[in-house]
């Protein structure tokens, strides 16, 4: 394998955006029949490099060689035709079309100009069978979970006669079983001679599947390494370019021995539920308490978070905030009670991409004040400057569109948006998903700090380690039901939670 010629070579690639130098003279090679991990923090230039490769962006400088020939793609369709297929981090499919249509859109099997629907469905079924996915190809894609949609996107990519398959964080919304399924498919494709470029934030996955690793940092190439010769710690050091004290500190930060919250609850919900979204559940959150919400993808975590914020309306149950009964009918009501919410879907439900960092940060505060009382410009600048510094939002220019920032920095902007409203309860739905280890650590530390300062946090995450580290209390979701609430004492560990998820029975209820 090492002796073979690269199928893809990128040399001296540079690319700038207004205010950001995303890539600076980066070299990259991809061999046939390998899984190659592209690693780096948020903003290191991974997505940009991929978009240059797939023709979404054009490089300012540099050359791309595919199969020995120089190429310059002027659009994704051209790249696809040349054999470079891509599955993006955020699923880029049409949820209102059927599964089969999504797989074949733009290259439908045709006869005399007319689409051959039966042929299309047949081929879609056989492709999905290759991925062990048994779903109705006629159903609307939107009726399936994000994970299934991701698999459909992969099916779409491998159908094309691909030489290079680019997977940009395909696993960030998949659960463990689905990841294993995906890896099986990836190994099979690799053994068929396909070159796979794999981007992920999960280090374990890199070591499970990747043959070689290329590391980027701040838009520059750090190096290219065989996976076997780069230990995990070394990789992280190369990615963040500093000593790992941050990481070590993380472990000390375990919340196990922190005192569980006492006294009157801040939020007390009974029998809250919404038909066909989540079964009725009880939950109490105290001041300064971090409640972790664990569970597999699609287990109802997000649904609980949305009900508690009024993003969806509950059709049953009672809610008390500081003992006063209330109905969380809309987000405005919830915000009025001092509740903030960061959605798991940053781009669709979080940021307003074309507005500036500053405008995005003050949005919730401004909404709460009403449009007739604008936040004075000096106060805006003061708040924004403070939080850009406190959360180290990069680039630290409050006037560039937030859409130009990397995912992790967008997440920090959203956190800042809520923090300046000084909420009493902050609901964070997957705040660390799809962001790099540095930003992740910062956000986790922030959550701990906030709770020390008396803020209550509902922390929703697919990563059990993270939930265990931060939470005082852990609620476990399974099949749209809250199956257990555990006090996070030393007896609780990841295995125990996984057993709970698997068994579906609560071990010990928190008295509430």
């Amino acid at each position, binding site marked *: 394998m090492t002796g073979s010629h690269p199928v893809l070579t990128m040399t001296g690639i540079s*690319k*700038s*955006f*207004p*205010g*950001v*130098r*995303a*890539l600076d003279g980066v070299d990259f090679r991809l061999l046939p029949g390998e899984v190659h991990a592209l690693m*780096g923090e*948020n*903003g*290191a*230039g*991974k*997505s*940009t490099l991929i978009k240059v490769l797939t*023709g979404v*962006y*054009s*490089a*300012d*400088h*540099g050359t791309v060689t595919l199969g020995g020939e120089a190429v*310059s*793609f*002027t*659009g994704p369709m051209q790249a696809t035709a040349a054999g470079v297929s891509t599955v993006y981090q955020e699923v880029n499919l049409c949820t209102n079309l059927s599964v089969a249509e999504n797989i074949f859109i733009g290259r439908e099997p045709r006869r005399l100009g007319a689409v051959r629907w039966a042929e299309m469905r047949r081929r879609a079924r056989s492709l999905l069978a290759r991925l062990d996915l048994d779903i109705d190809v006629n159903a609307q894609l939107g009726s399936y979970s994000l994970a299934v949609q991701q698999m459909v996107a992969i099916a779409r990519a491998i159908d094309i006669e691909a030489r290079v398959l680019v997977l940009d964080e395909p696993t960030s919304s998949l659960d463990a079983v689905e990841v294993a399924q995906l890896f099986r498919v990836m190994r099979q494709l690799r053994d068929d001679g396909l070159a796979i470029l794999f981007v992920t934030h999960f280090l374990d996955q890199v070591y499970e599947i990747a043959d070689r690793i290329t590391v*980027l940092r*701040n*838009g520059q190439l750090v190096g290219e390494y065989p996976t076997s010769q780069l230990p995990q710690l070394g990789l992280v050091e190369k990615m963040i370019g500093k000593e790992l004290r941050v990481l070590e500190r993380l472990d000390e930060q375990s919340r196990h021995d922190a005192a569980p919250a006492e006294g009157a609850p801040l939020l007390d919900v009974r029998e809250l539920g919404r038909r066909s979204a989540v079964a009725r559940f009880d939950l109490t959150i105290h001041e300064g308490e971090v409640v972790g919400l664990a569970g597999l993808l699609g287990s109802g975590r997000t649904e609980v978070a949305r009900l508690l914020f009024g*993003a969806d309306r509950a059709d049953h149950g009672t809610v008390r905030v500081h003992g006063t009964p209330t109905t969380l009918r809309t*987000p*405005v009501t919830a915000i009025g009670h001092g509740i903030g919410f960061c959605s798991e879907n940053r781009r*669709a*439900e*979080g*940021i*307003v*991409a*074309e*507005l500036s960092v500053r405008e995005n940060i003050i*949005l*919730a505060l*401004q*909404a709460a*004040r*009403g*449009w*007739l*009382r*604008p*936040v004075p410009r000096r106060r805006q600048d003061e708040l924004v400057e403070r939080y850009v510094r406190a959360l180290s939002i*990069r*680039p630290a220019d409050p006037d560039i569109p937030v*859409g*130009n920032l*990397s*995912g992790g920095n967008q997440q920090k902007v959203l956190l800042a*948006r809520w923090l300046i409203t000084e909420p009493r309860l902050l609901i964070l739905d997957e705040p660390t998903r799809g962001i790099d280890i540095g930003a992740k650590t910062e956000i986790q530390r922030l959550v701990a700090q906030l709770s020390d300062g008396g803020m209550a946090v509902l922390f929703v995450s697919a990563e059990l380690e993270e939930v265990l580290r931060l939470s005082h209390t852990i609620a476990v979701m399974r099949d749209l039901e809250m199956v257990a609430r555990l006090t996070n004492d030393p007896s609780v560990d990841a295995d125990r939670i996984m057993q709970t998820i698997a068994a579906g029975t609560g071990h010990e209820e928190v008295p509430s």
Partner: protein
Amino acid sequence: MSNRTAGYRGLTTHRLFWPVVVLVGMLAANTVYRPGFLSVQMRDGHLYGSLIDILRLSAPLILVALGMTLVIATGGIDLSVGSLCAISGAIACLHISQQPDQNSLGAVLTALALGLGVALVLGAWNGVLVAVIGIQPIIATLILMVAGRGLAQLITEGQILTINSDPYKAIGVGHLLTLPLAIFLALAAALLVAAVTRRTALGLIIESVGGNAQASRLAGIRSARITFLVYVISAACAAVAGFMMTANVSSADGNAAGLWVELDAILAVVIGGTSLAGGRFSLGGTILGALLIQTLTTTVYAMNISPQTSLLFKAVVVIAVCLIQAPGFRARFTRRRAPAAGPTSVTEQPKEQVPA
């Protein structure tokens, strides 16, 4: 990290650079064709000249387009503004025509209040259809666009309602400080809308709702209220424009007043750099767009282009403006002339740029 490559490209890539170039170009062409075009003379204490005419005649369009800008910024559209012009003008003229003394200032003010009031009610109707009931804006306002013409006809009983009222006429052709009053009215409206949107947080909230309605809702913005409000503002702007149009000719014609002005207004907004998809808006850009369209109309007349081909001529210029404003088209054009170092290609401008 931060590396601004603005430099000399800053000017040409400014989104209003090309509309300004076209506007200046048109004025220059007129001057070549008719050397006295730019001259402005003082006659009877009033300034006269083609430039003054362009400003005066563009006043109603500017008014309508200002309201339209806010509607479009929320991601909506208001097709009913032309009909609203006709209705408000008709109501004002009807009220004046019923007075014993049509020159009474009180009667004219009452007429204006009536016309504006009805327009506000109709704007609220649009707002309810879009913001409360949730009908798509293009359909919701299409109702009033079509029905509103009928309503205007009903008010004027199908006739052209002629009045003889000096105070009312002044709105269209009166003068203040040597300049046409209409210019001041348009300017005042522009300043008012600018103050309401930029001195308060209304502008930001409109842009936020238009940029990402879902995210705005989750940030606690009551987007229904904002949406409702912009349709009411749009109707108010249209009403004042309707007064100007009818005052210009001292008569109300339910059929002709404000006919197709909604299309010119939408065009002005788009030329001014506000996306039909909603989000960021530019009031200055809109005014520039309106001036450009009026200059074009004036040019067509001044050059004696035959009425049969004048619309075609207008269309050609508008297409040209839209094309050179489109980043994709410009990129293609500049690449052919001066191939850059790397493979440059932007077949479609990415909506968001998310490095890594």
